[in-house]
């Protein structure tokens, strides 16, 4: 199967112009990078809309775009659960209840918040795990990008890897977090503009939404599902057998909606860092809320074309097919690539390809800019060279360390990318394992923010045990039809889940509950070493209520939150 594109001069021109702007932004920001705070925290000066778009853009990496379009094909509109019951409620919760503590505590990172709230060892555990995880994620993203450029554009793998790493390094080295954030905003617009033609053309091709529903009915029925199983969200979640995702409503609700999404959106520093860069508490709280509005419409941009692809695949006259892997199974992640190829002529094709490249690179830049902050503040400044009395030379020194961490991060990412190319399965495995870190972390941070009794020893043990239980659950269960130990069942085959997704949900649920139970239990067994005064601004009950009265009503977080929740309810009902 030929997955290659033939790009013409105009496509390359679009690409070159885009990257000229990317590097130009880094260059323009260079002169503002005077100290570590400007470089690693963007000087806490971002307007809410910029931080908000960057907030969702960080997550809208190319792996996400490709994966979600593929999931659209595999699971249909059920994929929107990742957005409407997953991301959005978690983003609202972060904004309303958690952001005041993250931002108000003046912590510069999530691990630093943990240090302030709990103790040094819990921070150390979290910081080191996070640093390793982000670098690996960045490497996997780089590897995927280089593979894509090789297969689709016919470029040399090594050259693609080095070139993309060089571009990312250039603009993050020059402009730090500000540069990463501004480029994420740029990337957000190019993704929307680049993919919009695909949505319009593919829907028009099958006769609009109604045409799509009608053409899907026979295809889906032949798979043994109800005719509208691909175009509804909650209707068939009464039993795992009725819907293609293989999960019941409570699994979706607890696993995806609560544990996975809250774990990801509320505790992942990569994401939270964007809101922490905002210019005021109100702006920091509004960041996830402003991001939530475009976020809830992204399914139409990336999931709906995936559903259309299912129809195209089953309509012989369309000449649409997905490439196959060695085992002869379709590679679902290539859905969006094949759609670009199917519909776009030279010109807009360049825009679409640029959008994908852009999202790969901003994914890397996001990881690198989170890594250098955690490295500089939570590892280097805490364990290697603490702050001295000389503030001016400290500023210079930590800026230098931040910059070196950026270079180091990119180099290790390249190494990780080559590891991924040698041992693809091991990287998949590590990624699965690291996706488990967030679930216990959410339990620990949540208890820390809302229960002043939670202690450091308890949090540390809870975090560790939660992670251990996640591993254990992954080792004892497996998705049906799994042929590799990477997917689970490497200890024993205790339970089989219908699909991998269901296994992931339940892993997270077990990890989070274990961590919560152990933290609560041990908190009662140990004494709280922090006084109420030390916990002020870190725990809900000990922090003065935020007063929003000075803010005009239309700018208040509560107003925005109501708008967001109303909109998402309307969408849920429309596509029930």
């Amino acid at each position, binding site marked *: 199967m030929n997955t290659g594109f033939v790009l013409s001069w105009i496509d390359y021109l679009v690409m070159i112009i885009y990257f000229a702007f990317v590097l130009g932004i880094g260059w323009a920001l260079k002169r503002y990078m005077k100290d570590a705070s400007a470089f690693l925290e963007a000087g806490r000066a971002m307007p809410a809309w910029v931080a908000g778009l960057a907030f969702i853009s960080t997550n809208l990496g190319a792996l996400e775009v490709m994966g979600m379009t593929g999931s659209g094909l595999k699971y249909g509109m059920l994929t929107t659960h990742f957005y409407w019951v997953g991301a959005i409620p978690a983003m609202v919760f972060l904004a309303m209840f958690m952001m005041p503590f993250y931002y108000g505590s003046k912590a510069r990172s999530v691990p630093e918040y943990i240090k302030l709230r709990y103790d040094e060892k819990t921070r150390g555990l979290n910081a080191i795990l996070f640093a390793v995880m982000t670098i690996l994620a960045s490497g996997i993203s780089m590897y995927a990008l280089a593979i894509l450029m090789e297969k689709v554009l016919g470029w040399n793998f090594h050259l693609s890897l080095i070139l993309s790493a060089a571009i990312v390094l250039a603009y993050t080295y020059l402009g730090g977090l500000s540069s990463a954030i501004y480029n994420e905003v740029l990337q957000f617009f190019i993704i929307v503009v680049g993919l919009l033609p695909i949505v319009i053309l593919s829907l*028009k091709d099958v006769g609009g939404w109604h045409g799509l529903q009608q053409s899907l009915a026979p295809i889906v029925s032949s798979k043994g599902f109800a005719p509208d199983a691909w175009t509804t969200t909650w209707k068939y979640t009464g039993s795992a057998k009725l819907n293609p995702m293989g999960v019941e409503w409570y699994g979706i609700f607890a696993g995806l909606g609560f544990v996975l999404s809250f774990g990801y959106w509320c505790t992942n520093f990569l994401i939270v860092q964007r809101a922490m860069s905002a210019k005021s508490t109100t702006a920091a709280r509004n960041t996830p809320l402003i991001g939530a509005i475009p976020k809830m419409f992204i399914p139409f941009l990336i999931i709906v074309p995936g559903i259309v692809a299912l129809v195209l695949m089953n309509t012989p006259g369309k000449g649409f097919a997905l490439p196959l892997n060695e085992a002869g199974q379709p590679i679902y992640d290539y859905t969006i690539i094949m759609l670009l190829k199917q519909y*776009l002529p*030279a010109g807009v094709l360049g825009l679409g390809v640029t959008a994908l490249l852009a999202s790969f690179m901003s994914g890397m830049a996001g990881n690198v800019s989170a890594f250098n902050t955690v490295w500089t503040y939570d590892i280097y400044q805490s364990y290697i060279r603490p702050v001295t009395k000389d503030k001016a030379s400290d500023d210079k020194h930590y800026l230098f360390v931040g910059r070196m961490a950026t270079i180091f991060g990119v180099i290790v990412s390249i190494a990780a990318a080559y590891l991924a190319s040698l041992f693809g399965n091991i990287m998949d495995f590590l990624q699965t394992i690291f996706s488990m870190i967030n679930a216990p972390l959410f339990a620990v941070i949540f208890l820390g923010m809302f229960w002043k009794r939670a202690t450091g020893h308890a949090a540390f043990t809870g975090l560790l045990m939660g992670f251990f239980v996640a591993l254990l659950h992954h080792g004892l269960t497996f998705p049906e039809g799994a042929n590799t130990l990477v997917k689970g069942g490497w200890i024993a085959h205790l339970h089989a889940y219908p699909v991998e997704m269901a296994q992931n949900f339940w892993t997270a649920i077990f990890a989070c509950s274990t961590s919560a139970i152990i933290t609560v239990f041990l908190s009662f067994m140990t004494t709280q070493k922090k006084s109420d005064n030390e916990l002020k601004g870190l725990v809900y009950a000990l922090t003065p209520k935020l007063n929003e009265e000075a803010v005009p009503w239309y700018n208040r977080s509560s107003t925005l939150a109501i708008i967001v929740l109303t909109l998402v309810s309307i969408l849920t009902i429309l596509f029930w």
Partner: protein
Amino acid sequence: MGIDIKLPIGLMFTIFGLLLTVFGFATRLDAGMYKPSLGINVNLWSGLGMLVLGVVMLVLAFFSRKSKAS
């Protein structure tokens, strides 16, 4: 910090808009080229759309600069 991001966004999409509008107009008679896109000249339409986005961003950037200066 420092720069107003609306300015580069506006500039970039204005350039993209002009580029694709002109390209779409020049290739409007090439039926073979637009066969995959169901006979629609997507370059022309996307170009015009981006031009609007770009100009709106530039106007917004101009006004926020003005309000900052005064």
